[in-house]
């Protein structure tokens, strides 16, 4: 009960900080929009390739991928905010108080989840304006939101854990560039599974970014395969648990180091 109350206080704190950085809000909202239109224009005609399948136009195929990409990078940068708190002594101040330890992480994840949802809604609406066409829009969008939030929660936890252990901005930048970016492209994000090289298809099968796409985008496509969607949501849930455990260990290791 106390943990929930404290999580609510921490959520308020992070939400206020989020709203008070208009540049950050603009950045997180504008960047995906740019991707949506750049990629949308660049690859517009790939759906004409034989074997692309899906039977939809490219914006319809692309918009969910941009939602996932935004969730991935938004949460990947999450470590930066905890790093700032660490460097300013805010974390240590909380640790000498009786605050619930979990709330220090949970509050951040909730605000990140809210940011992910806002981004997703904006991207899907703009996608619709640009010609995306979804048959089961509401149900599909809900599944996409769930999947994207599971991914964001997992990656966010990892990013917080990394910040607590490495305590360097460089590490977060490195992970974003050398791990998250390749993960984004080793998936069916921008190209149909049937048209990507076999080795990428094999890697993608174990890539949580692709699990998110399979579940979230799958639900928005014509003739969704609900069995596969459910299975991939399940993988994501396991991934969240694994990342949560790693993050908890990182937190303990930080506490031992002070």
């Amino acid at each position: 009960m106390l943990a929930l109350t404290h999580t609510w206080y921490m959520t308020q704190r992070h939400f206020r900080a989020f709203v008070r950085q208009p540049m950050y809000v603009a950045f997180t909202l504008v960047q995906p929009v740019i991707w949506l239109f750049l990629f949308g224009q660049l690859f517009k005609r790939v759906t004409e390739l034989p074997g692309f399948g899906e039977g939809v136009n490219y914006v319809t195929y692309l918009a969910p991928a941009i939602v996932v990409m935004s969730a991935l990078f938004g949460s990947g940068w999450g470590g930066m905010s905890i790093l700032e708190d660490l460097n300013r002594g805010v974390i240590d101040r909380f640790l000498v108080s009786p605050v619930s330890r979990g709330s220090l992480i949970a509050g951040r994840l909730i605000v990140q989840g809210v940011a992910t949802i806002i981004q997703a809604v904006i991207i899907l609406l703009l996608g619709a304006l640009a010609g995306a066409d979804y048959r089961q829009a509401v149900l599909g969008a809900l599944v996409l939101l769930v999947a994207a939030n599971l991914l964001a929660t997992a990656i966010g936890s990892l990013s917080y854990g990394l910040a607590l252990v490495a305590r360097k901005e460089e590490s977060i930048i490195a992970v974003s560039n050398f791990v998250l970016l390749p993960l984004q492209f080793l998936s069916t994000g921008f190209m149909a599974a049937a048209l990507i090289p076999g080795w990428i298809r094999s890697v993608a099968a174990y890539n949580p970014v692709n699990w998110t796409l399979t579940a979230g985008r799958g639900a928005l496509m014509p003739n969704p395969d609900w069995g596969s969607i459910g299975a991939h949501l399940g993988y994501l849930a396991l991934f969240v648990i694994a990342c949560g455990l790693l993050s908890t260990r990182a937190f303990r290791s930080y506490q031992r180091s002070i």
Partner: protein
Amino acid sequence: MHAALNLAVDARELVKTYKGGVEAVRGISLRIPAGSVFGLLGPNGAGKSTVVKMLTTLSAPTSGTATVAGHDIVREPNAVRRAIGCVAQESGVDVQATGRENLMLQGRIYGLRGRELNLQTIELLDRFTLTEAADRLVKTYSGGMKRKLDVAMGLIHQPQVLFLDEPTTGLDPEARAEMWEQLRELAWDRGLTILLTTHYLEEADQLAQRLAIVDRGRIVIEGSPDELKAELHGDAVTLELAADADAERGRDLLGSMTVVEQVALDGRVLRARAADGASAVPGLLGALDAAGVTVAAVTVARPSLDDVYLRHTGRSFSEAEEEAGRAKRQDRSAVAA
């Protein structure tokens, strides 16, 4: 027996060894009666902050035990946390929030609600003259204002014991004097127990009723500032020589004189101790002059805590600080390499 003494802090043989073998604290015992102000004085890197981290439950001791406000720091950390306020060396305020928001969040964590929380917030803002700035973001605050907010946050739940780790480091002299005034008031009016660490000798002298000098993870001497100074028997006579070359000769010469109780060399500055400094000076100057050692300047001072420090650690405070600075730089370059 112990309960009768009513100790706010009772630490026994605390040791902290960090991974990699750094022995930050090598066996420190402290007994601080409730309602008193206790100072831990020492240069940077002496282990003061680590003692505070252990007593405030932030860091687990490698060995040793301690109770704070009657609660064991290892077995009952949450009871300790509720009983203490802590102002760490690094500020810890949220700069993206206003002063009022910082205070209210801190209060809520300790279970304050509604009217009680509001009153307590208003009172602390007023006490630390932050009322006008209360609704501004903390990133617009000056260093002194941030520090005051820090202390106010440490007090929001009316703790029994307040830990202040270097409360005035980085403050200008005016802000420092203001902070001292506030802390004195808190200790006197509220009977709050305060444990403060500082590397300012003057601060320990001004605020602490008792103090312990910490050097390289150990307490070298403990007592009231006056006791420690009285123990030195005599005044400090500082003679600055004109030439480095004469320094050792000057030291040996003074060392052989009966009025001089102790002499130490610091560059080309001779620090001697004599029962009555003023009357000893003519004799010292005469002897040095006769030996051809030219004195550029001479001062006589009542004993200071710096002298206490010198006597118990064998080096002056500024030397110890420099040494700590060097060690830190080496650490950093080791990490970089």
